[in-house]
């Protein structure tokens, strides 16, 4: 039984077709890394999954919530927006540039979606937030403002904020690209720990080492299509497709 299911997903920006019909099923508890050149559509795929980009065509289903359109000319109505919002409540999203809310403390960042979005009582939300911040090693920094945190701390905070939704799936859009090299590991180790707990995670990444060491499956994309999917030890050592091999040669 897959927790994420994508069928015939298409998306274009103007004339440029960014996703040319993606089909993909993901089992619960897996850590999937999406790799590929810049502009291959991997980030757009991730953003389309939770409706930040509106799909043109196809169907997405995540933890029982679906988004679908028959064609680009399908009108977008209230219903679509509602469905997208419902789906987002079950997807934690982590951005390359953290995007903590600079006008509130770290703790409030984590609390907000619970009290405002999910109507959880404030004291309950605070207790949960503190636990989550403890989990990502930021208990001591909970009262700081985002601008007082390092990049690694910010990104771990952003992960805690996303986890506050108790999401079925975590989506990461190049979570370590904006970090100094020595801070990358602290974020990756949080992701590894979540993997241990059985969280389903989809990560767009340029960290080949992380993809090889930590992921269950690696998805290689090129020009809006999935070229190859494989377990990391297989895909990295003996890729089936020439295009994958060429891409990996530059990294390994």
């Amino acid at each position: 039984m897959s927790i994420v299911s994508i069928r015939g997903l298409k998306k274009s920006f103007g004339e440029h077709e960014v996703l040319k019909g993606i089909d993909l099923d993901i089992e619960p508890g897996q850590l999937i890394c999406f790799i590929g050149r810049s502009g291959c559509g991997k980030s757009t795929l991730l953003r389309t999954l939770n409706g930040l980009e509106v799909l043109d065509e196809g169907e997405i289903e995540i933890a029982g919530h679906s988004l679908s359109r028959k064609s680009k000319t399908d009108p977008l109505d209230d219903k679509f927006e509602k469905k997208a919002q419902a789906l987002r409540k079950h997807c934690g999203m982590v951005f390359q540039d953290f995007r903590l809310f600079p006008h509130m403390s770290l703790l409030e960042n984590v609390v907000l979606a619970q009290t405002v979005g999910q109507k959880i009582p404030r004291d309950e939300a605070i207790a949960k937030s503190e636990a989550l911040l403890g989990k990502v090693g930021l208990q001591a920094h909970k009262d700081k403002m985002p601008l007082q945190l390092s990049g690694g701390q910010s990104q771990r905070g952003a992960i805690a904020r996303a986890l506050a939704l108790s999401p079925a799936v975590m989506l990461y859009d190049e979570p370590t690209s904006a970090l100094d090299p020595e801070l990358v590991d602290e974020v990756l180790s949080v992701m590894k720990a979540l993997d241990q707990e059985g969280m389903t995670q989809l990560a767009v990444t340029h960290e080949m080492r992380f993809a090889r060491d930590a992921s269950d499956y690696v998805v290689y994309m090129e020009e809006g299509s999935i070229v190859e999917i494989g377990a990391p030890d297989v895909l990295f050592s003996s890729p089936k497709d020439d295009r994958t091999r060429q891409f990996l040669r530059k990294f390994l």
Partner: protein
Amino acid sequence: MKAASREFWKIFLTASGTPLVVLAAAAVGATFSFTSCPDARAAEPIRWAADTESGAPLVFQDPKEPTKIIGFEREVIEGVARHLGRSATLVHNSWDGLIPGLSRGNYDVIINGLEITEERKREISFTDPYFVTFEQLAVRRDESTIGSLANCRGKKVGTLKFSLAQTMLEKFGGIEIVTYEAEPTAYEDLKNGRTDAVLLDAPLAIYNAKPNPALKLVGAPIGSVLYGIGLKKSDTELLAQMNGALAEMVKSGELRRIYDRYNLWNPLMAERFGDSREAALEPPTMYEYYLNSTNRERTITERLKLYVTFLPILAKGALTTLNISLVAMVLAVGLGLILALMRLYGPKPVAILSLIYIELIRGTPLLIQLFFIFYALPHVGIRLSPFVAAVLGLGLNYAAYEAENYRAGILGVAKAQSEAGLALGLSNRQTVRYIVIPQALRIVIPPITNDFISLLKDSSLVSVITMVELTKLYGQLASTYYDFLGIGLLVAMFYLLLGLPFVRLARYVENRLTPTEAKEQRIGLSKRLLGRALTSSLK
């Protein structure tokens, strides 16, 4: 997008809260406060209008007691009212606005050196003249070439805007005319050499130029000028009553006594009123009182003492200024936010409406808008009190600018932040409410503070709609005491003191909202960039 538009209305309804309701209520209240029952009118005071800045001897501030308004016209109208068994209350209005204010029903009569002319008779009706005078030429003391209007050809002659003297100069031809709002500035410019002569009604010359050691009156009386009390054309009953009262005052010598005390009796009046007795000046006359108390040769200590007596008056004016500015700013900030939300998140027609409003308001002068609100709206049945009109004029105007501030602020909160909110499963509305607006507010605090300070200063414009605030008081005091410099500095100081606390407050709020380390980073970066620019420019 339909979804977006529904969210918009929710935001709109949440954001548009009390300020509009309060203003609407105030506006309605103001509308009704002016309508009164005609039967009760006889017992009501006669509301007479004058520009209190117009100076001696017509209507002016008592130099010894600046809160008191005196002048021969006050005595004339009070005499008339007494004869009619009524009292008289002064409504201040600027000279330009006197006739529009009358047609608007702000007051019953105008008595303010209003010359009876054919042109004016088309708009309003006049009583029989209560005062007859002539035009008087004044020049600098060392001037020897000008002795009559004929010598003024090719020269610059100052006079008051819309006055009979102006018409006379235009008809005479060949003279470069310079017009002024008030006579003290006309004579001041003559003294300073900006004009070669000033032609004005004799009373003004007698009170302003004659006592001035730098000026002298020259030439024979020019023409004949009749002052009449101006009324609405429809007010025929009051017109007849007033003519009756004036005739009685002439007969009893009451009118003559007023002019004697003010040193204004002249042969023209003797002829018109059929009173050829010698002037009977009983000291102390008002003229002497005026000369003594406005003695221009004041020592520094005398001046400072005088300024101290101005402080309570100016403080009161400052309070009015502050009051208008604060209420207007609250309106501007509230309406501005609504306009910005309309423009950014509203469905297309609403967004266009907001855009039209903003462009219309920003593209027309505030002064015109104030005139429009105060003098034009009554034609469609909307009458606002001066205060409400002032607040609405300033508030509606600044709302357009605040809307643009907000829009910049909201757009400045990058799309990235909105996405982060949406990604947490928040609705559009929640995202705007909890993430975009709080950050936008912080961005707009500095520009809004700047705007508030310019609003404080722009509030000086509301003197044109009969509000007496700081700037109006400056005009009144400076023209009474012929001290534009000292009183000007004093008033400037008041404006400065009004603005300063808000600058400090804004800085404090801004500092509180920005964490120290971020600030240091920012300073560090700008220093680095500046340093680099400096070193590279030196190379």
